């Protein structure tokens, strides 16, 4: 059955918010898929980076339930390759921020064994806390 895509005020407002936070003109994305082709984390993602871009273009807020933005580690491989000059790492950051600004964290260090946390250098812990918690 064909799926009906609804564009309404809420979806337009969501797109506007992510454009504002990221500073990227997300509507420029042509869906060529270069970002998904080069992403080192794409195998782990539930939706690809280009699917994430399309969902944001359409203002589909269920994109916030995807794992994809939390797996983006800002390696910028897609950023340097996007033929439209878009920085997807900033779009992922915008999406993460929408969640984190509701004081909802994506990381709780208490969920990991203490011995494992002890082994980690602070550069890893601070980076993870900065990107994944509010």
């Amino acid at each position, binding site marked *: 059955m064909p799926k009906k895509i609804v564009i309404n005020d809420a979806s337009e407002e969501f797109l506007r918010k992510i454009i*504002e936070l990221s500073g990227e003109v997300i509507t420029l994305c042509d869906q060529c898929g270069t970002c998904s082709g080069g992403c080192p984390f794409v195998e782990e993602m539930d939706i690809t980076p280009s699917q994430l871009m399309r969902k944001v273009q359409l203002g589909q807020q269920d994109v916030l339930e995807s794992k994809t933005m939390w797996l983006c580690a800002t390696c910028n*491989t897609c950023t340097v390759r996007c033929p439209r000059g878009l920085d997807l790492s900033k779009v992922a950051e915008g999406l993460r*921020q929408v969640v984190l600004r509701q004081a909802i964290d994506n990381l709780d260090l208490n969920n990991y064994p203490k011995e494992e*946390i002890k082994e980690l250098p602070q550069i890893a812990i601070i980076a993870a806390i900065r990107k*994944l918690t509010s």
Partner: protein
Amino acid sequence: MKIPYFPGCSLKTSAKNFEISAISSAKVLGIDFVEIPRWNCCGVVSSLSSDDLMHHLAPVRNFVRVLEMNKTKMVENEKRMLTLCSMCYNTLKRSNQRVKNNPEELESINNFMYREEEYDGSVEVIHYLQLLDEIGFSQMTEKVKNSLENLNVAAYYGCMLIRPKEVGIDDAEEPEIFEKFLSALTAKPVAWNAKKRCCGSYLTVNNKDVVVDLAYGILNDARKNGADLIVTACPLCAFNLDNRQKNVLEKHPDFKTIPVLYFTQLMAIAFGLDEKSFGFELNYIKPNDVLKEKVFK
């Protein structure tokens, strides 16, 4: 040459071997790292949201310290800030670009700091590899006491040294500065595919398996292309590629380990410095055997 040096957290802890080897080998070249007084954390990762100014305050404070060093004559008219850690380099450089390009944002930050010296955008963040390139890599060749001609080395750029383009120290897709560095040290750079593939960065905290898989791919690619060891400029890459070999071995018992060194450790070896300045005690996979076979024969 005296230059303001920003260490960052890792260089004082998990990557002490990076710092000690860098400072001692720089002396051979007549470069004096002057540690920035009261430096603070760079923030590790860059805050990318358009409305997030607060997280750019920490980098700007460090730039103010560099201005102070010039004022108090700790350095002579030297507004370059030298970094070793590629994450610090990236984060500091991105913040600097942002405030330089947005005078209103810089004004807000300066107003917030109020009694601090005003930052005018005049500091330049550089990475040590850039400084060595500028001085001339050939200067290093003259100082080589232990030839590395039998050593095949995979230069691992990772992400933060070369991406995004406006921050990178070399071309984002075809970088060669690290290979030029290796050749000047008389080592043999290997051609390999994974040199700019992400190691998984901070996902090592909450997605260890992802990082272990990425590390396995990167390390095997280096081996397959004949590398005896890998060099890096990033303490987080070093953890994921070196220490995580323990986890790679748990998953793939027939995996052949490979040492991962900081590029400055290779300088200390080539310049014939004392073993203390190598700092191998902090390397998880020890390079001693391969060095004995290929360098210290």
